[in-house]
């Protein structure tokens, strides 16, 4: 990185921290620290919800996802608007009515302490580990591309935000998220504008989409139905998006304290609802635009040299092994294909649709398939036992483009975007981990009689401790393997469904009581983990996205069965 990039990066990050500390003045009690005294307007709630959900990976991975797999990833968000409606009808009024600090408090009111403790424990376990991985995932990308030390990158990625998160709690988190999203969207828009500008003179935005479309990348809607019927392993299609995505969004926004804590800061039910519904309106178009950026980058690389593999560190790693000759061979074939690809797209560039015949399109598809095969061949080398590298370069695609082609200064700004988008979600996670620890655990089992001032001080300590814990997890995250983003998503799917099932029983199934729900949750969790293990062993074919729906439905079903066949004649809490 050049000096201007360093200056932009440091100034942007410093601005966020200073703004966060400036906005950290709040009352010294739990209401002030965790809920901003419940005085936030809907647009701050909206930004906070969006900033919590959108991590660095959202902005790094989505364009890369569009580059490799097309735009169908957007379907993953189709269930979200529907989930927002259910939340507004059921969850929000109840959470506000009881003036809760955490979602799990409600479970004690409805069921008993053990159900509340179990769900908050599942949340703390899942959120604590996944936040650690969320620190490591963008840190390893930056470390790999820029040659930074991974341990220090982890510390900066997960550490600096602790300053304002500890100082100002939910209020500082919400206001910094607002500023962060403004910077992120401006930078992404600038990047999109420059991709189009860097296309050949005769090629405009619309032509770039045509190139992407011809290569099958504009597959926004897919049904998941193939020759053998519906493919349950297919992750992103209309049905898994609407059904699986609905359950995932309902679990995440309704039962994950990192999100519940955001809309509980609203000054009224009305403001909470507006924040959530606006999120339902803007989320799908926002994801669509981020994926569109990936299509533009794809079109750009049709006219320019595209790297064989976007993570150069892995290429260097292979070139220093006995597979160096094989790599050279692959690279030569790839370069030949890449040159021919550029010749063909230039015909399109020179003559437009008229000169770009079906034969040209077919040849371009053939060459792209050939390039994909060569990339796959290289990935096999990376995965060899004696190399054990990261064979997934999806998250490197957009950043590789940024580093290779964008002007000085903007590179620094886009690196800052990675940091601050991470900070937004990590800060909310730390705030929620601390709130659940103090409200659901500490004040339940350690010290029930704490003054408001003691609550406040202890909350700050827990925020700091969770911050340190997550950085430690990040430092050990390389042991998990290469699919870090997938690890976060799978981790969520293992627990979210069960927690949602408990909440669905709480809201909609009055006859079911505490003991039945508790054991339904325990059995449900065991079943979900078993299904996951069976899938990993290839005994069954099931995408992890379905685990949310299965977990939730299983807990509801087991709750009813246990209530009516086992606990019916006993006294309940």
């Amino acid at each position: 990185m050049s000096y201007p990039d360093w200056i932009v990066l440091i100034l942007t990050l410093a601005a966020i921290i200073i703004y966060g500390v400036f906005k950290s003045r709040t009352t010294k009690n739990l209401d002030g620290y965790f809920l901003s005294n419940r005085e936030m307007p809907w647009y701050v709630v909206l930004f906070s919800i969006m900033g919590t959900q959108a991590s660095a990976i959202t902005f790094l991975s989505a364009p890369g996802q569009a580059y490799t797999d097309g735009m169908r990833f957007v379907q993953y968000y189709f269930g979200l608007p529907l989930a927002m409606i259910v939340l507004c009808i059921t969850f929000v009024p109840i959470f506000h009515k009881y003036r809760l600090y955490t979602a799990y408090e409600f479970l004690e009111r409805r069921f008993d302490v053990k159900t509340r403790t179990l769900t908050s424990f599942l949340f703390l376990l899942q959120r604590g580990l996944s936040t650690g991985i969320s620190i490591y995932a963008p840190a390893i990308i930056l470390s790999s591309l820029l040659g930074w030390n991974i341990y220090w990158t982890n510390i900066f990625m997960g550490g600096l935000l602790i300053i304002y998160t500890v100082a100002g709690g939910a209020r500082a988190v919400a206001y910094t998220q607002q500023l962060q999203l403004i910077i992120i969207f401006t930078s992404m828009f600038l990047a999109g504008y420059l991709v189009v500008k860097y296309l050949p003179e005769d090629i405009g935005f619309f032509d770039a989409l045509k190139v992407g479309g011809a290569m099958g990348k504009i597959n926004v809607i897919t049904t998941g139905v193939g020759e053998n019927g519906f493919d349950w392993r297919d992750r992103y299609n209309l049905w898994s998006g609407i059904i699986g995505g609905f359950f995932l969004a309902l679990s995440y926004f309704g039962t994950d304290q990192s999100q519940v804590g955001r809309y509980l800061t609203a000054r009224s039910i009305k403001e909470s609802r507006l924040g959530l519904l606006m999120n339902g309106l803007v989320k799908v178009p926002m994801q669509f635009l981020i994926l569109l950026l990936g299509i533009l980058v794809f079109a750009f690389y049709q006219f320019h040299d595209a790297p064989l593999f976007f993570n150069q560190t892995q290429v260097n790693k292979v070139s220093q092994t006995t597979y160096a000759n094989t790599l050279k061979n692959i690279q030569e074939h790839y370069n030949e294909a890449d040159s021919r690809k550029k010749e063909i797209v230039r015909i399109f560039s020179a003559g437009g649709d008229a000169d770009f015949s079906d034969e040209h399109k077919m040849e371009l598809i053939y060459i792209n398939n050939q390039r994909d095969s060569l990339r796959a061949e290289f990935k096999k080398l990376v995965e060899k036992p004696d190399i054990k590298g990261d064979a997934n370069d999806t998250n490197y695609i957009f950043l590789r483009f940024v580093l290779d082609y964008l002007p000085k200064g903007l590179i620094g700004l886009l690196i800052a975007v990675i940091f601050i988008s991470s900070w937004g979600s990590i800060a909310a996670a730390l705030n929620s981990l601390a709130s659940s620890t103090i409200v659901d655990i500490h004040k339940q089992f350690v010290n029930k009689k704490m003054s408001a001032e003691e609550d406040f001080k202890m909350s700050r300590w827990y925020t700091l401790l969770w911050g340190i814990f997550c950085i430690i997890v990040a430092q050990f995250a390389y042991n998990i393997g290469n699919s870090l983003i997938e690890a976060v998503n799978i981790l969520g799917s293992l627990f979210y469904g069960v927690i949602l099932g408990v909440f669905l029983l709480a809201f909609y199934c009055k006859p079911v009581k505490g003991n039945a729900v508790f054991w339904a949750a325990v059995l449900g969790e065991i079943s979900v983990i078993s299904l996951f293990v069976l899938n990993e062993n290839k005994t069954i074919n099931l995408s992890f996205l379905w685990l949310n729906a299965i977990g939730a439905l299983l807990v509801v079903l087991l709750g009813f069965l246990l209530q009516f066949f086992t606990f019916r004649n006993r006294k309940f809490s």
Partner: protein
Amino acid sequence: MEETNERPPVFKTWNGWYIMVITVLVAQIILFIYFTKYFS
């Protein structure tokens, strides 16, 4: 403590908002189907 039945902006009831969110989602899906077909 806020009123649970406070009126939403723009529409008379919250149902108006819910219908709008669903309508926008359906419209987006239809638009995406058209978009996919057009460019493929």
